[in-house]
């Protein structure tokens, strides 16, 4: 790009909701042909100006990045900040159809902070405009409505900037799409935000996009400052909530960036995020913000519950996506909170997701705003972890505190935390060692700790000290994936009726082929269907491939004589092998062809889990070769 710079004059156009400031440079250098340094790429390249996906906002280039375009093999080195660069070429003021101008865009969205000082709320007085980083931009020809060929999609850089050469005299509109597709040497992601209109049904929804007014390309460079507002006008969202999809998208990008700071390359599969102002927290809509099967669903119900600016929730749900894609996650989901005693798989999954939210955002206070004018909500400190329930492997708050302490950089004398495992170690724990663990166990805090002890063997004592502080692996020097010798099963913690669970330990029971039946019981003392002791875990090893019969028989050790509906599900690592969920009373049996290897299974009484009554169900389980 020609570095000659000429004076500019300014003209500002104020649009009603989308504020576009149009700076027209006064035709000094004119413009030459398409500048080879201008961006056009099939995916955004976050490394264009020295920034990496791991950094934020450090790019200095005015233009978007390039790779595979006419030019420079992947990096942009256009000349600095907007207003200081111009196109090359000798024309001065005269325009012809063959001449081009440079259109430079600076795109930002309004972000609203949350605050829990006093009452939790979205703090509309503390909003700011942040760069819409790595988002897709299209140039539409006004007359044809077609996307102008820019040799591939355009994406903004880390500063929300992108530039493109356009024919002088051409009339265009700019479409900014809530979509980001990045591929660098550190990793890749592909995230889009779509309008599901309040429905929990999967369908081909529209991508959120903002379309500007018609812009006529004139001689000289053009700078456009596009600011997407939240739509908040003081008492309500009286204007379109333009910034919400971009705020959500940026949280997804920030989450991915955090993990690309490690030494291991991270490639994330495509993620669709469904958000709508009609996404309500009830069963006629999406129910809550959640992750499922590669998709995030985010609340947007004004005056009831909106989550587009609740960064911790966005990252929490993104973390579920991450674990599903690259690590292990065996949670059955379901309602959960910091005051629950949970199934070990749920406590781990939810606790890890919240801890990651605090770590990614470098903000230890998890906040969820809701209510009229978004002026309510609650918070939870990942560092201090509240005392809603006793600590242990069944407590998501204990898991949060433990994982946060392992990875936070701040030493905390109050809980003996002077340990810091870095992001590369986190990558190894989550994406390598846990994935490589025995297929005969589920992902729980124990499998996480076992992997942590492998990766950070030099810090094993510190890891166990932190675990012990949460009453996990108490008195043990190490833990294994099966929670062998775990002694804390919340046996002394009474529910509201004064009853304790008696069936929380051992976490796993071994099932041997052609051996005597294993007797197990479950209870619903602390609720159902995903709470502690609801489902019992077993593990077994198949030495010889073949067909085997698994039988689960209700037995008379149950607390009452009611009919059972025993079910079981068999897994290899996180892969479902077989689900035996018939409604046959008091018995569940099936023949399964197994390859040699390790397996784990869960056993439960569906009728017990489907009832609000507290009770105990017991079964005898056998595994026999055929």
């Amino acid at each position: 790009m020609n570095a000659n710079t000429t004076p500019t004059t300014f003209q500002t156009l104020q649009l009603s909701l989308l504020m576009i400031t149009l700076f027209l440079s006064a035709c000094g250098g004119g413009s030459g042909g398409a500048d080879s340094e201008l961006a056009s790429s099939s995916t955004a390249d976050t490394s264009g100006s020295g920034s990496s996906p791991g950094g934020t906002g450090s790019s200095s280039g005015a233009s978007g990045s390039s790779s595979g375009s006419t030019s420079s093999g992947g990096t942009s080195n256009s000349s600095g900040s907007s207003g200081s660069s111009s196109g090359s070429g000798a024309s001065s003021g005269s325009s012809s159809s063959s001449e081009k101008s440079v259109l430079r865009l600076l795109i930002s969205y309004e972000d609203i902070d949350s605050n829990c000082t006093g009452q939790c709320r979205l703090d509309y007085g503390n909003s700011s405009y942040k760069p819409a980083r790595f988002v897709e931009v299209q140039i539409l020809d006004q007359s044809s409505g077609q996307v102008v060929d820019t040799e591939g999609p355009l994406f903004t850089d880390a500063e929300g900037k992108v530039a493109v050469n356009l024919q002088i005299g051409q009339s265009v509109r700019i479409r900014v799409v809530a979509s980001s597709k990045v591929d660098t040497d550190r990793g890749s992601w592909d995230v889009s935000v779509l309008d599901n209109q309040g429905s929990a049904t999967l369908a081909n929804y529209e991508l959120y996009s903002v379309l500007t007014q018609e812009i006529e390309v004139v001689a000289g460079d053009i700078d456009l400052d596009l600011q997407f507002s939240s739509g908040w006008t003081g008492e309500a969202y009286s204007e379109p909530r333009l910034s919400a999809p971009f705020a959500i998208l940026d949280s997804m990008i920030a989450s991915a960036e955090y993990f690309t700071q490690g030494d291991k390359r991270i490639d994330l599969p495509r993620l669709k995020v469904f958000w709508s102002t009609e996404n309500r927290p009830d069963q006629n809509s999406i129910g809550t913000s959640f992750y499922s099967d590669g998709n995030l669903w985010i609340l947007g119900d004004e005056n009831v519950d909106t989550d587009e600016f609740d960064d911790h929730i966005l990252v929490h749900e993104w973390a579920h996506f991450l674990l599903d894609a690259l690590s292990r996650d065996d949670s059955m989901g379901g309602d959960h909170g910091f005051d629950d005693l949970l199934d070990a798989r749920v406590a781990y999954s939810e606790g890890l997701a919240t801890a990651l939210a605090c770590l990614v955002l470098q903000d230890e206070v998890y906040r969820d705003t809701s209510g009229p004018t978004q002026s309510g909500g609650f918070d939870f400190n990942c560092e201090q972890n509240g005392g809603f329930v006793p600590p242990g492997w069944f407590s998501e708050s204990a898991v949060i505190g433990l994982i946060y302490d392992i990875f936070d950089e701040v030493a905390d004398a109050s809980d003996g935390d002077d340990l810091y495992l870095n992001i590369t170690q986190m990558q190894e724990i989550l994406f390598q060692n846990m994935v490589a663990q025995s297929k005969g166990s589920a992902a729980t805090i124990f499998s996480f700790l076992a992997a942590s002890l492998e990766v950070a063997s030099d810090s094993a004592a510190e890891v166990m000290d932190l675990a012990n502080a949460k009453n996990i692996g108490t008195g043990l020097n190490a833990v294994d994936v099966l929670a062998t010798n775990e002694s804390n099963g919340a046996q002394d913690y009474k529910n509201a009726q004064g009853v304790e669970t008696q069936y929380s330990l051992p976490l796993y029971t071994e099932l041997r082929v052609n051996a005597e039946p294993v007797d197990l019981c479950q209870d619903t003392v602390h609720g159902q269907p995903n709470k502690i002791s609801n489902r019992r875990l077993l593990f077994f090893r198949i030495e010889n491939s073949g067909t085997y019969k698994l039988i689960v028989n209700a037995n008379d050790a149950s607390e009452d004589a009611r009919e059972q509906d025993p079910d079981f599900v068999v897994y290899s690592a996180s892969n479902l092998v077989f689900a035996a969920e018939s409604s046959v009373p008091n018995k569940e049996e099936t023949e399964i062809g197994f390859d040699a290897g390790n397996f784990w299974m869960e056993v439960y009484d569906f009728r017990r889990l489907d009832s609000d009554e507290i009770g105990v169900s017991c079964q005898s389980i056998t595994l026999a070769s055929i």
Partner: protein
Amino acid sequence: MVRMCVLVSLLSIFLSGCLDRLDSGPRNVLWSLEGQLPSSVVTGKPRAPLKLAYRLTAYEQDWFDLNISALGTTEVRRYVLSTDSSRKGRKELLVEQFNPLREGSRLGFFRAERFERLILDVEYQSGMNTRRHTFSIPVNQADRTPLETCNEPPCYSDAEFN
């Protein structure tokens, strides 16, 4: 503040009187629905440390009552029940109740206009803090289906401006 408390008290007395009349005379239940807040089938973000059971009953002559009981140990300070009857998001206060009973608290209200959901704001004690959380209870509304989908993605919402 005092004035507000007096007004609230008067409102409570008025509503209690209304409910007494309901109690005293024959009343026919038209329909009812019950559930938990939050729904136990949903999964996702951590919920506030609140778990409630509710039963909404509709009577003849546009009378309703919502029975709420707290299932956990959290101490509830106040219920505020409202509804938004239109898609404009306009909320209308129906009834509020201070210091409700844990085991069951009845919020009665008269409502002639059709409503699609109730909105329940709950003020509760969380450690040293008072926190608020809001629930949505769907009423008279079928499952939401997408209004518009596109046949050949990608499609764009294209928010435009004048």
